[in-house]
């Protein structure tokens, strides 16, 4: 009989997408195991990993759990994949930030905040599946499209949900040096 810890570890090892506690529970024979217990097991595994010089850790992303390498592994992983690292331009990040904080948001609102035409950036982000069309603004001429971030956005930035993004006010404290002199 495998230990619960072993099963959870194996499932997270095999899965190619984040697994929620509910999904993990659904894959167990013993349906009486509480979600909290599974969560505890994952925390236990992470404790073992951090004490054992492991290359990976279980992260909470997009409402699920996923094994991810630790940051120091990045240069080696990139060499293995012979890849240039994922990169988003400043313009793309700014556009993404506006969508993330103002969603659902209109193209025109993005243009206004950034002071430039954001059309090309919106298409790039749609192509990368970081944002999606989430609806249309009724009552405006032409019912313009509304944009929101996607689950892939959460996975890409290692966020559990949108609420785990720091608020704009919190960010001001994080990056005081980049702020123009305000007072």
């Amino acid at each position, binding site marked *: 009989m495998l230990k619960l810890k072993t099963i959870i570890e194996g499932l997270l*090892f095999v899965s*190619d*997408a984040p697994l929620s506690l509910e999904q993990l529970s659904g894959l167990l024979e013993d349906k009486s195991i509480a979600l909290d217990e599974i969560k505890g097991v994952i925390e236990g595994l992470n404790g073992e990993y951090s004490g054992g010089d492991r290359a990976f850790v279980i*992260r909470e992303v997009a409402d699920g759990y*996923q*094994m*991810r*390498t*630790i*940051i120091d*592994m*990045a240069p080696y*992983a990139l060499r293995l*994949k012979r*890849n240039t*690292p*994922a*990169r*988003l331009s*400043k*313009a793309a*990040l*700014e556009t*993404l*930030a*506006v969508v*993330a*904080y103002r969603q659902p948001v209109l193209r025109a609102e993005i243009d*206004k*905040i*950034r*002071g*430039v*035409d954001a059309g090309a950036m919106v298409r790039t982000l*749609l192509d990368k599946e970081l944002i*999606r*069309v989430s609806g249309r603004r009724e009552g405006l001429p032409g019912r313009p499209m509304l944009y929101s971030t996607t*689950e*892939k956005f959460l*996975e*890409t*930035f*290692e*966020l559990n949900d949108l609420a785990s993004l*720091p608020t*704009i006010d919190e*960010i*001001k404290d*994080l*990056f005081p040096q*980049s*702020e*123009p*002199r*305000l*007072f």
Partner: protein
Amino acid sequence: MELSNEELHLRLDIYQGPLDLLLHLIKINEVDIYDIPISLITAQYIEYIERMDSLNLDLVGDFLIMAATLTHIKSKMLLPAPEETKDDQPAEDPRMELVKPLLEYASFRQAAENLASMPLLERDVFTRGGEGLGTLDLAPGQALPRPEQRVAKSTALELVKAWRYLLEERGKEEPTLSFFMETVTIGEKIGKIRAFMIAYKTAHFQDLPRARNDNFDLALCFLAILELARTGFLRLWQDPGPDPLGPRLFLADPTAADNLKAMDYR
């Protein structure tokens, strides 16, 4: 010296737009954002865009609008303030129309920096395997995985991509001349594909019986499989990345499309 479009683009890329350039000027001049020396900043701003020296209005258009705004604010400030306003309140500083968007943009620029500093997938952290969507490889007749295990999270965009891809593939086919017009309705097309899928169980889009080099027929095929998928008769699978044979089709429920016969598709 003539600058090529690309070089100009690079120089413009330093600033994400007029607001970015203005924030930069405010910073290097070490001035208070609530008390912008509008004359100085306007002069520097205009000097900068003059150096862009480009006739590409698409590229500099947004910068030019801001130049006009700055000049407008400057001229407003040169005018004596109106002696009294309606509510006897001091008139708003004309620079405020600039300060509000600048502050708003600055906060989103910081939010972007914050995003850039987060552990980015495929740059700082890596998961096992590659893309989040695994590939599905089934031998003919092999049982389908349960749908809840293998439902691709797709959007209409994926459909558009698949369609554009099929059109491109069609362009590669040998051109042929056709001398007769075939008028096939979508109902007939559905009937053909139903019979084909009941016989073969799984197929690639390219395997389906259809007229070669005929966009109308390709469109009918595409609509037919969408309709069949909607009824649950077919399940569609598009591998991430290009698959030269197009989307894959699986027979899901042979009885699901029976009620389609009565419907009119023209």
